[in-house]
């Protein structure tokens, strides 16, 4: 004889067991009483929408396209109605109907808790509160998270509060946790529940544990550390580089459950008498979000908007409201066509960058010394060519048989033992064979000694050092090379690199200026470039002679001759300091932004590894952060140009 089933009265904060049939009667009961919205499938994805029957409801889903928060803060709503002229007071408009939202995942429950804090504490928002108080939230545990979700890292994969009822599918039925009096009443009215048995309690825990093991993405630092990490990374180059492909399309903020910013505008009827004040979703990622009427835009770059959004998610919202601004749902990462929006990726990148800096600073006594730091590798001179009586190009091969592994724009420290060591930029591209070339003007002790070397002689090489040219940024762009005199030496490495990978770039223009025809460098290459149909090449000399048939004048006189699309072109300029000043003015006249003017600086250097202090410009070490900079980076460095 089976024991008689006792009718259990659901209590708050307790978990019961309910059959699927009982859940159906709960949902159908709700449909009779109020508007019921739930998760439905649409075009292969999931969305929240009105449901008319239990069968439409989908409780096992990964993530919805947009979050359920749209029922609490609709995309557009009227706040006020008024009569133009201001003679009568504006009337508030509050639209709220009783509504149940079924199938809310814990991360969205957490997002709603954040919205509650934002809109229901200091300056409580009447429209939000009216809707919130009319809303019943029936959550469901997420058992098959989206591959873009990282809710477990944000502590939002489970919810203890913020719902009226919370369901967990345990296969044989549902566990239902009661989160409020209202939830208890609903169960009592529409469903039958019973106390769970031991195996069901175990199963409840097991399915949750299994689900939390399914998250593919995770935060690599404790989330408590995010505000501090972000604080330290405000100037990190990550923001600029990662936001390069940002479309400013706003998809990330439009699908975010924790985004709550809005715009307010008046709309007037055609009778020009009746008006309404509306609010609609807005987002800090959109171009005009911080633009004021005078035209000033306080976050006018993609990078500043991109950074601001991530700072809100990991820092600003948390500090203001005490709740994390990102619940790890992954919707922004799914919506972002440029694939850059995921906060977890930004958080991890920043953590890595900050940790690398910290590790560098804290190695201290335990640090293992880099025993080879100051020891040059030996390299054999395999070929010498005289360019002019003052300049030669030397081709070296490392004796250990390895390639140098340079990036165009990097430099090496070259030693002639007994004479000394000097920083020399690398003139050849890594895309050429296993040797490397250094073009050197004879100006000091070391370079004089180098000029005396013969094939087979040995020098010391340390490096390559420095950042090199921004190859990733240059990819796909039009490039304007401007080389003045021996500025061609470092630039040649990049010119070769670009020519070897010509199809990866747009239009390529090369301008070269020498003081006189006798000081022209790499004559064979100049001749080849002038015939190469894949590049546009212009040359000038400051002062001509009877042999010279070409342009005469300083290099800036070439710039008006070329057709530049300022939006798509990056200028890479290398030459003497005086040249930079005039070329920059000329390029800016042609519409190039400071970010798109790239230059390589020369400084005295004794170590190449950020220690000796010689190359420092204000706080910047040229051998570490340089020698390649954008003008945007340099314009505020007082000693730079």
């Amino acid at each position: 004889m089976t024991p008689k089933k006792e009718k259990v009265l659901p209590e708050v904060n307790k978990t019961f067991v309910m059959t699927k049939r009982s859940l159906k009667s709960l949902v159908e009961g709700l449909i009779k009483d109020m508007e019921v919205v739930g998760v439905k499938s649409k075009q292969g994805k999931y969305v929240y929408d009105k449901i008319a029957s239990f069968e439409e409801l989908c409780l096992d889903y990964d993530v919805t396209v947009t979050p359920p928060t749209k029922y609490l803060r609709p995309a557009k709503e009227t706040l006020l109605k008024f009569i133009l002229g201001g003679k009568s007071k504006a009337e508030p408009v509050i639209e709220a109907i009783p509504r149940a939202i079924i199938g809310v995942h814990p991360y969205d429950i957490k997002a709603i808790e954040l919205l509650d804090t934002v809109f229901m504490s200091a300056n409580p928002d009447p429209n939000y509160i009216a809707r919130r108080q009319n809303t019943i939230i029936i959550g469901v545990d997420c058992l098959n998270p989206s591959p873009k979700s990282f809710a477990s890292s944000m502590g939002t994969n489970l919810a203890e509060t913020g719902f009226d009822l919370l369901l967990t599918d345990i296969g044989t039925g549902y566990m239902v946790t009661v989160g409020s009096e209202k939830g208890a009443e609903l169960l009592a009215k529409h469903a039958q529940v019973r106390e769970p048995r031991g195996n069901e309690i175990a199963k409840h825990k097991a399915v949750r544990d299994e689900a939390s093991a399914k998250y593919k993405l995770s935060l690599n630092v404790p989330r408590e550390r995010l505000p501090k990490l972000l604080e330290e990374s405000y100037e990190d180059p990550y923001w600029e580089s990662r936001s390069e492909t940002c479309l400013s399309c706003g998809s990330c903020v439009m699908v975010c459950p924790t985004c709550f910013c809005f715009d307010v505008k008046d709309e007037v009827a055609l009778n020009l008498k009746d008006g309404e004040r509306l609010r609609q979703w807005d987002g800090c990622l959109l171009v005009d979000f911080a633009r004021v009427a005078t035209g000033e835009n306080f976050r006018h770059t993609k990078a500043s908007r991109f950074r601001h959004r991530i700072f809100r998610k990991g820092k600003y919202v948390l500090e203001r409201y005490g709740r994390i601004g990102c619940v790890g749902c992954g919707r922004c990462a799914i919506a972002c066509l440029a694939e850059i929006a995921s906060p977890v990726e930004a958080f991890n990148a920043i953590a890595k960058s900050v940790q690398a800096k910290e590790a560098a600073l804290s190695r201290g006594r335990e640090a293992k010394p880099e025993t080879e730091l100051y020891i040059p590798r030996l390299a054999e001179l395999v070929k010498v060519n005289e360019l002019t009586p003052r300049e030669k190009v030397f081709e070296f091969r490392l004796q250990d048989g390895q390639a140098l592994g340079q990036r165009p724009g990097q430099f090496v420290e070259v030693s002639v033992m007994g004479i000394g060591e000097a920083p020399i930029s690398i003139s050849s591209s890594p895309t050429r064979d296993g040797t490397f070339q250094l073009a050197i003007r004879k100006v000091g002790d070391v370079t004089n000694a180098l000029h005396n070397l013969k094939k087979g002689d040995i020098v010391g090489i340390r490096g390559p050092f420095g950042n090199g040219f921004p190859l990733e940024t240059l990819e796909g762009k039009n490039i304007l090379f401007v080389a003045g005199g021996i500025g061609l030496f470092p630039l040649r490495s990049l010119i070769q690199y670009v020519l070897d990978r010509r199809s990866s770039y747009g239009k390529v223009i090369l301008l070269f200026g020498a003081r006189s025809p006798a000081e022209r460098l790499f004559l064979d290459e100049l001749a080849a470039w002038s015939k190469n149909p894949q590049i546009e090449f212009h040359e000038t000399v400051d002062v001509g002679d009877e042999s010279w048939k070409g342009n005469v004048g300083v290099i800036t006189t070439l710039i008006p001759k070329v057709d530049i699309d300022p939006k798509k072109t990056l200028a890479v300029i290398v030459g003497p300091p005086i040249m930079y000043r005039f070329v920059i003015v000329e390029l800016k006249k042609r519409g190039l932004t400071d970010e798109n003017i790239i230059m390589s600086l020369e400084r005295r250097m004794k170590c190449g590894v950020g220690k000796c202090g010689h190359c420092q410009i204000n706080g910047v070490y040229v051998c570490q952060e340089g020698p390649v900079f954008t003008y945007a980076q340099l314009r505020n460095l007082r000693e730079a140009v």
Partner: protein
Amino acid sequence: MKPKVAFFDFTGCEGCQLDALNLDAGEVIDLLNAVDIVNFREVKTERADDYDIAFIEGSISRESEIPRLQKIRAQAKIVIALGACAGIGGINCLKNHLSMDEARQIVYGKDAKYYDTIPARPVNAVVTVDYYVRGCPPVTAELVKVIKALLLGKKPDIPNYPVCVECKMAGNVCVFERGMTCLGPVIRAGCDAICVTSGRRCWGCRGLVNDPNLDSEKDILKKYGLTVEQVVEKFKIYNTYAEVTK
């Protein structure tokens, strides 16, 4: 005094005018209470040369249209480009990819010599444009919005964000996730993403946002399987003019 409004058509299908005042009866009466419509070929035969606000429909594609447009500009206090052809050049500019002789041959055959033609261009390539009512066809609500803003003495509030914003507000599944490609990420919103919401995709009829990241959009289109030529074709349809003048 009610402002006098005139509509003028240049090269186009005249669909903008047809759609322009597709209002319900009450709104038409409200509109006529607010403005005097003095020129409107599709609704009235009388014409007047005295007007304050000129709506220009169509792109400029013949030499003779230039002085005509300049005369309108000189008379009107406010010039508004109506629709894609007037605003961004629109599909008329597809012919700009041909030589003008070829274009004339294709259209007029043996009578080609009787017709002049120049590369098609938007109104703002010839005269200053104060405001735009965008789209192909333009959104009637936007036309009314612009008129209301002018009557109230404020700038019409036309979005400078892309269609994605309104598409997400509408709760749509992204076109790219449905196996198609879309220009929405760089095209100016204001249409409520009507094409995507009705199951299609954005063709770009409202023109580009002010500072579009075209490089990124093109890379994305390629990532989703389009060839370089297909990407160009996609932009050509409505945005030839913006592209070729870059």
